[in-house]
């Protein structure tokens, strides 16, 4: 069991900066994020885009902001559980919260700060009837164990980096066959990957099926049959062992929506007049995930909310201690 002072759900910019503000009060933090890397939207949606409204930076590239935040919180030695979704929350006998992730990792703390942004990044699933029946054995949105695809016939759908990267990977590593189905003729992946995939297509290592998309799925013994529609109205079937529809990730509020928190339009209602507390004592929500009258979904507003929130968290954790706001210009940074 991982024990800390504040469990932060979401390792985006606001979650990361919470570690800093908590660190100034000598509170330890542990972050949980469904994505495999810190940075949230800045890392997943727009890593190369400039941001112009971070005070003090006329312009900063999103991924660089994440790097700088990681550097800024380094002295406070935060823990990370990455690539796992915060799934369930319960109260222990001592009043602390216990959060289990999708992979079963347990975390315990007296305070929870939800900095979940727009929610959990979850795979975009194609709207195909009965798809969920096949998700256990034949349809995969994420490649967790590449070894299960050895000697298998694989179909990949999508035109982005993950679709191309995995098509290349399986063409190079033991798959029996690799087919890549894409709605268009153009790919939005890195140029190097696109060039390589086209070479592999010429060499017969990858079969490219362009201007087409899968529209149906059915079972054939241990295999699946994909119904494919092309833009010129041809219809045909492909029998394969595995289908990987890789259409990127989209954020959903996810399991947090069932934690008994007051939800308003897909965001968590908080008390902005005091400390961004939710309707559950000890759980706060900051950044894009919360809502209140006049809410602005800006990184800089999330930073402000983090600073206010940790003051309240301190009083909750140490009800008998008086905290005095200290300026970093006076005391510097004392890590732990």
């Amino acid at each position, binding site marked *: 069991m991982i024990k800390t002072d504040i469990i932060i759900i979401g390792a985006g910019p606001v979650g990361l900066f919470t570690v800093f503000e908590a660190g100034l009060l000598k509170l330890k933090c542990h972050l949980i994020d469904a994505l495999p890397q810190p940075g949230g939207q800045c890392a997943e949606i727009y890593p190369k885009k400039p941001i112009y409204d971070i005070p003090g930076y006329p312009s900063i590239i999103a991924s660089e902001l994440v790097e700088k935040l990681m550097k800024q919180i380094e002295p406070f030695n935060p823990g990370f559980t990455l690539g796992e979704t915060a799934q369930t929350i319960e109260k222990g006998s001592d009043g602390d919260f216990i959060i289990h992730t999708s992979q079963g990792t347990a975390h315990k703390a007296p305070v929870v700060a939800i900095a979940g942004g727009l929610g959990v990044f979850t795979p975009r699933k194609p709207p195909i009837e009965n798809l969920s029946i096949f998700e256990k054995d034949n349809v995969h949105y994420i490649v967790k164990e590449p070894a299960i695809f050895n000697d298998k016939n694989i179909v990949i759908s999508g*035109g*982005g980096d993950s679709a191309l990267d995995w098509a290349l990977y399986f063409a190079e590593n033991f798959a029996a066959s690799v087919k890549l189905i*894409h*709605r268009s003729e*153009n790919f*939005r992946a890195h140029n190097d990957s696109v060039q390589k995939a086209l070479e592999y297509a010429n060499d017969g290592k990858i079969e490219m099926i362009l201007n087409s998309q899968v529209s149906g799925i059915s079972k054939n013994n241990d295999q699946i049959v994909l119904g494919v529609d092309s833009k010129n109205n041809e219809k045909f079937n492909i029998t394969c062992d595995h289908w990987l529809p890789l*259409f990127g990730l*989209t954020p959903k509020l996810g399991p947090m929506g069932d934690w008994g928190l007051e939800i308003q339009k897909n965001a968590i209602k908080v008390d902005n007049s005091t400390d961004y507390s939710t309707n559950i004592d000890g759980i706060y929500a900051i950044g894009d995930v919360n809502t209140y009258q006049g809410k602005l979904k800006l990184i800089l507003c999330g930073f402000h909310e983090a600073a206010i929130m940790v003051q309240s968290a301190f009083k909750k954790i140490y009800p008998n201690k008086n905290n005095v706001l200290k300026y970093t210009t006076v005391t510097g940074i004392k890590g732990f």
Partner: protein
Amino acid sequence: MDVKIHVTDREGNKQTISGPTDMSLNLMELLKVHEYEVEGTCGGMALCASCHIYINSKNNLPKISDSEQAMLDDNWDSKANSRLSCQIPINESIDLLTIEIAPEI
């Protein structure tokens, strides 16, 4: 001036909304102001397709950029008349535009 836009939502309800041309708004933002269910997850950078709409009129719209095209190419419900509403600025050329909000991604 204010432009008028005819909107059909995901349930098939029709409404005409109006938007000012002098506030540097895009159509995604205007739809959100009118509480339509477009997410605008990426904030308007043509990076998420959560503001996907269908255009059902012949207005003169800005050309589709490479990044918008890439998002539409990867989107399940894309049709020949698909656009990302965040890439359509509110100006005189879209007056009386007729749109339908695409299914949720």
